[in-house]
C-alpha cells in the first residue's frame, strides 16, 4: 500500500520537475530575445530619458543615518538632508518633488545597486574618492564633511593621536572611507568594521570599543541621540560628498550639477543645511 503511494508521489514529483525545466527553458529563450531588443533601444535611450518616461526618479539613500537619511519609525517616512536634496532633484527633473522612489542602500550595496540599474543615482553620504571614480561618475560636491571621533563624554580622547595606541579599539562601518583613513592615521589601533553605523554605535554603547569614527556630520546625529557621547572637535580628513550616477550618464550628471548650482545660488541649499545640521554652512 505504502509503496504504491510512494511510487505515485515520486512519479508526480518527476513530472512536475520535468515540466518546470521545460517551462524554464522556453521562458529563458524568449527573454534572451527580448534582451537583444532592449539593448538596441538602450543605446539610444539615456537614463535621463528613462526617468522622464517612467515619471519617477529612483534614488538610493540611507535609512539608518540620523540627519541624512533616517526612516522615522513614527511616520514610516524617510527623512534627512540627502532626502531633501533628492526631492529637490526630482522637482528639477520631473517638476514634482513627490515623483521619487527612495530605495535603501548601505555603503556596501550602493555601487552594485547603481550599476545593475536598480537605482538611477546614489545620494547617500558618499565620499568622492579616486577609487570610486573608476566605478561611478560623481557630481560636484554637495556636502563637505570631515572625519572625526565619537567618544564617551568622560573619555580622554581628544584627537586622532590619542587613539593611535595599542589596545585602543576604533569602530566603524564596512566599506567606508573612514576605515581606510583611520588605519592610515592610527595604525596602532585595532579597527573593527560593522555592517552599518547603527550597529557600530550599538557596539560602542556596549563598551565594545573606545571610539567610533566616521564623518562628523553623522557623529553629530549620534551624539544628538545619546547625550552620553560627544564628538571630538578635531577633524582629520576632508570628506566631500557627491551624488553618484552610472559611468557615462552625462545627461543626468549635467542636470544634477545644474541643480546643485541653482539651489546654492537661491538659498534653498542653506535652508536644507540649517534644517538638518543646525548651523549655516561654512563658506
Amino acid at each position, binding site marked *: 500500500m505504502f509503496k504504491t503511494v510512494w511510487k505515485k508521489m515520486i512519479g508526480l514529483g518527476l513530472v512536475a520537475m520535468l515540466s518546470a525545466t521545460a517551462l524554464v527553458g522556453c521562458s529563458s529563450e524568449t527573454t534572451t530575445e527580448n534582451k537583444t531588443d532592449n539593448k538596441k533601444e538602450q543605446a539610444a535611450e539615456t537614463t535621463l530619458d528613462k526617468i522622464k518616461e517612467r515619471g519617477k526618479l529612483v534614488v538610493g539613500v540611507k535609512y539608518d543615518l540620523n540627519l541624512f537619511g533616517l526612516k522615522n519609525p513614527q511616520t514610516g517616512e524617510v527623512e534627512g538632508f540627502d532626502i531633501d536634496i533628492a526631492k529637490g532633484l526630482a522637482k528639477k527633473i520631473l517638476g514634482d518633488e513627490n515623483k521619487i522612489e527612495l530605495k535603501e542602500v548601505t555603503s*556596501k550595496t550602493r555601487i*552594485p545597486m547603481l550599476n545593475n540599474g536598480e537605482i538611477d543615482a546614489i545620494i547617500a553620504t558618499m565620499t568622492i574618492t579616486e577609487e570610486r571614480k573608476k566605478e561611478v561618475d560623481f557630481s560636484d560636491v554637495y556636502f563637505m564633511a570631515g572625519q572625526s571621533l565619537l567618544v564617551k563624554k568622560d573619555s580622554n580622547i581628544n584627537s586622532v593621536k590619542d587613539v593611535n595606541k595599542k589596545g585602543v579599539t576604533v569602530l566603524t562601518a564596512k*566599506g567606508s572611507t573612514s576605515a581606510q583613513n583611520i588605519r592610515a592615521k592610527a595604525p596602532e589601533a585595532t579597527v*573593527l568594521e*560593522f555592517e552599518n553605523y547603527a550597529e557600530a554605535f550599538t557596539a560602542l554603547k*556596549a563598551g*565594545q570599543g573606545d571610539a567610533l569614527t566616521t564623518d562628523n556630520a553623522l557623529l553629530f546625529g549620534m551624539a544628538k541621540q545619546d547625550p552620553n557621547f560627544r564628538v571630538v572637535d578635531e577633524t582629520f580628513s576632508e570628506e566631500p560628498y557627491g551624488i553618484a550616477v552610472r559611468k557615462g550618464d552625462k545627461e543626468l550628471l549635467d542636470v544634477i550639477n545644474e541643480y546643485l548650482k541653482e539651489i546654492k545660488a537661491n538659498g534653498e541649499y542653506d535652508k536644507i543645511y540649517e534644517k538638518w545640521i543646525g548651523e549655516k554652512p561654512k563658506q
Partner: protein
Amino acid sequence: MLNYSILIEHWDMYMQGFANTLKASVLALIGSLAIGTVMAVFRIAPVRPLNWIGAAYVEFIRNIPLILIVFVFFVGLPAIGIRFDSFTAGTLGLTVYTAAFIAEVIRAGILAVPKGQMEAARSSGLTYLQAMWYIILPQAVKIVIPPMGNQFINLVKNSSVLGVIAGLDLMYFGDLISSETFVTFDVYIFVAMFYLLLTIPLSLGVGALERRLARSR
C-alpha cells in the same frame, strides 16, 4: 571566469578569517557537545527539577534566532558589566545555540536505546549515572552520529554569524574584501570554497565514523 587575483591579493585576510572560523567552530563544537549532553541527561533524568531545567533550556534557546543570542552576549551582557570581545561573544552564542539542538539529538538517541538496558543495568547494581555512562550512552552514540553530523555542519556554517559583530571570521573578511574591491560574486565564491574546505571533510568524517560504528555493532 573567477578573478583569482582577488584571492591572491587578499590571501592574508582569507587565511585569518579561515583560522578564526575554524577556531570558533572547534571551540563551539566541544562546548555545545558538553552542554548538550548535560541538558539531554537533565531532560530524561528521574529528577523533576532537572527535567524542567533541561526542557526550559532547549525550548527557550532553540526558538530564538541565533543572531539574537549572539547579540545578548555581545551587547546585552555588557549592560550588566560582563564584557566579551566580538570573537568570544560570537563563539559563546554559537555554543549555547547549538547545544540546544545537540541536546535534542542526544535525548532522541538515549530514548532509542531499549528500556530493558537501563533496567538490567540498574538491577545489576549500577547507579543511574553509571548505567547512563557505561551502558546507555555508548549505545546512543551510534544512533546519534548521523543527526549529530548535521548539527556539526550547521554549526560551521552558522559561525558566519560572527561576521555581523566583527568577529574576524571568514564572513567578516569576505564582507571587508568585497567592500574594498567592489567585487561581490567572486569574493563570496572564495568564501564559500573555504567553508567547503571545512564542511566537506567533516561530512566525510561523519560518514566514515558511521560506517565503522555500524560494523562494530
